[in-house]
């Protein structure tokens, strides 16, 4: 009888008479992680700054020179002076870095060389389209990958499993640029359904508000499909591996022995336990939605943060590149933090240790 009671809550491995104050423990844990993250961020920013400083000066001069060649531009000396002022190139590395940090904390990342507007302004212009694109792709990814992963795990070593596993691996092995080129060939060139690239069509200005929305949506179809297909594989495999691990656990055997229907065993007992890791991973990848898809956006010329920063990086726009790199580092740390917290929140077993 006791055994049955324990089985009814597969998650309830924690003994009920523990005297921890959960909220306290979790907030302490979060604070500790936050402090570590800040330290890591400082180091990462320092390494990135070091890298920017170590770029051969002739390169910086070349960039500044080509910038000064543009009609109506500042003079070469002014560009170099601006660079030195923003990045403390005239100072030694440490004080230069501290100066840069000071500006960065105040939200001043300098003016972008390529876009000739403040870095933060360009960032605001481009990040939202990336977020929308990434968000939609993320939802589709979850809808497709998780059920397939579970099906593959429950039907291990059947034809279905093999098919799903191979499809997952194939998606995982597809280089983005090749898949995008194939998509363009089939859907843009041969079928003519979508434009080759860009976010808006050529008669965008003449369209009504609804038409403009539809136009943008149509331009986002291929990038989103690409993103989904490219990223679906790893999530599918991850779900399958986790589900298999859970299915091999003792409590599943017990649940089966108890005579529960297979549906109940899988969707009530097993799936809930798989959710622990899934939620952690998916939660951790939420901040990444703001990072933009560097390659996909570039291939489809979607003016999101990924494409904008690609252009900046290739053009040697140091203020923007520096900002983007630090921004990515922040997102990674945030993702790790979220997944750690979620892990603690979702899985009671973690809280004890």
């Amino acid at each position, binding site marked *: 009888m006791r055994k049955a009671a324990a089985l009814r809550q597969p998650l309830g491995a924690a003994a009920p008479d523990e005297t921890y104050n959960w909220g306290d423990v979790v907030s302490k844990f979060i604070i500790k992680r936050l402090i570590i993250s800040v330290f890591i961020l400082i180091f*990462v920013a320092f390494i990135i700054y070091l890298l920017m400083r170590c770029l051969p000066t002739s390169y910086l001069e070349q960039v500044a020179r080509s910038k000064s060649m543009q009609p109506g531009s500042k003079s070469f000396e002014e560009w170099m002076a601006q660079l030195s002022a923003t990045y403390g190139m005239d100072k030694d590395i440490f004080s230069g870095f501290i100066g840069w940090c000071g500006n960065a904390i105040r939200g001043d990342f300098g003016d972008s060389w390529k876009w000739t507007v403040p870095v933060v302004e360009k960032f605001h212009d481009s990040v939202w389209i990336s977020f929308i694109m990434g968000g939609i792709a993320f939802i589709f990814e979850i809808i497709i990958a998780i059920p397939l992963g579970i099906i593959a795990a429950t039907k291990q070593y059947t034809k279905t499993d093999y098919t799903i596993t191979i499809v997952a691996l194939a998606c995982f*092995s597809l280089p983005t*640029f*090749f898949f995008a*080129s194939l998509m363009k*060939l089939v859907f843009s060139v041969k079928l003519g359904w979508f434009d080759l690239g860009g976010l808006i069509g050529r008669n965008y200005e003449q369209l009504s508000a609804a038409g403009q929305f539809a136009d943008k949506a149509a331009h986002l179809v291929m990038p989103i499909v690409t993103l989904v297909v490219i990223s679906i594989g790893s999530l599918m495999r991850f779900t399958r591996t986790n589900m298999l691990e859970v299915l091999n656990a003792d409590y599943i055997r017990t649940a089966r022995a108890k005579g529960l229907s297979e549906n109940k065993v899988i969707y009530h007992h097993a799936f809930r336990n798989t959710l622990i890791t899934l939620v952690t991973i998916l939660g951790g990848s939420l901040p990444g939605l703001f990072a933009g898809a560097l390659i996909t956006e570039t291939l489809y010329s979607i003016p999101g943060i990924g494409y904008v920063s690609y252009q900046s990086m290739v053009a040697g726009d140091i203020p923007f590149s520096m900002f983007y*790199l630090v921004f990515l580092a922040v997102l990674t740390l945030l993702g790790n933090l979220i997944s750690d917290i979620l892990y603690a929140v979702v899985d009671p077993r973690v809280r004890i240790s």
Partner: protein
Amino acid sequence: MSDQNQNQNTQNTDNQFSLNDDRRVRTLSPGALVLRRFIRNRVAVTGLVILAFMFIFSFLGGAITPYSEDQLFYKYTEQNKQYAVVKENTEYRYSSLTPKSFPSVAQAKFVLARKNNQETFESKGTNYTIREEGEEFYAIYTGKGKVQTLAAFATFDIVSSMEADAEVPFMMQYEILKAVTNHESGFTYEDQEYTIDGDMVLEEGREIAYASRYVVQPLMSDVFLSKSFKNELIEVVEEGGKEFTFTDEDGTTAEYSITYDAANLSYQVLQTTQTQVFDTYSYPSSEHWLGTDRNGMDMLTRLMYGGRVSLYIGFIVVIIESLIGVVLGGISGYFGGWVDNLIMRIVDIFYCIPSMPIIIILGAAMDALRMDPQVRMIYLMLILGFLGWPSIARLVRGQILSLREQEFMTATEATGIRSSRRIFRHLIPNVIPQLIVTMTMSLGSTIITEATLSFLGLGVKFPFASWGNIINDVNNTFVLTNYWFIWIPAGVCLVATVLAFNLVGDGLRDAFDPKMKR
């Protein structure tokens, strides 16, 4: 199996030292078990076959193919070059004794005078007298009364010398035109007798000059148009022909096409010549099985060498990352304490460094510095390796941490085995299965990263081929649309190789896992 066991049993009974049943279990070594499990996995074996094919294709293919990596191919094409222009003269053309003796103002006055049928006109204080010397041939004299000198003449016909670069003297031109327009049979110039045949001037039977109403001018600076060429050309033009073939004195035949240019009221003559050009984007043929690329290089050969580069880079990068990862992860896991803490924080930091953007920035910087492609390739490998080790370090550390606590390690400690032997003989071999799986998988992802960079033009550069930079050509929409053989084969090779690495990695993972039951 039972036969084997009995066999083993009889052997065992012969061997007096072996009485234990567990001896029988050792008929298959752990390695053989892994191998057996791997071979039973059909998908993984397929992956292995694909990999074997790719290796043979890339490494032996380069030796078998008759072409070299950057061998250029040429072809002959017919190109239409602007050769000459033919114009029928409908305006007076002036020849003057000296450039100053009949300036353009005087020319304009002459035209006015002709319209009004005046005999004389005046320009800038000089008086000119017009005398009609032949059909549409006017001589213009300056000076008054009897001391008149020939200043210029105006006509529709033009006198050209038979020799290149030679000019017919002014007075001789005058004599020729006078004779031609009056249909005379000859004239005397500087005590020399000349005869005229049609519009051809003969000096003792030799053709020296001719007069013609058509102006045929070469459009290329180094071309001299012979009289016979001009004559034939003019004949064709007068008949309204479009095609024209001419064989010159050396016996070379060239084809010309004639188009009428209404804007200039002239006929454009285009010479059709055979020109040697790069054999770019030629379709697959028996010579080039996959056609040629934008530089006129054999696609199949490029594909082989590209595979070689991609695989080389993949292997070297993975070896670099594993070396750093195993050493740092091993130290971290084995020693623990503050060393572990320090190394793990370094791993955390490296985890946060966004590798793709950094490689793009460095690639752009190397572009700007015009770095040598070979050096660049080495840098690319070092950068990729140096940014990729943290995940391997984490894996090795985790493995060693858990292994360290297991009973067999306690046993090695209890038996007093020295610590270097404990690490290399007992700890590392237990990490290797996981390591091999991770390395195989990361070979695939490294190849994708390299290909992506090369695709963006920031990885492997031109004289070297790489699957990525072969597909790079697809950025040209015309190639994307029309030349599938340029980019599809490279993409298929890439996907097949990466997929094969992943399949083999997956199969190895399953094979190494003793819990796996089939």
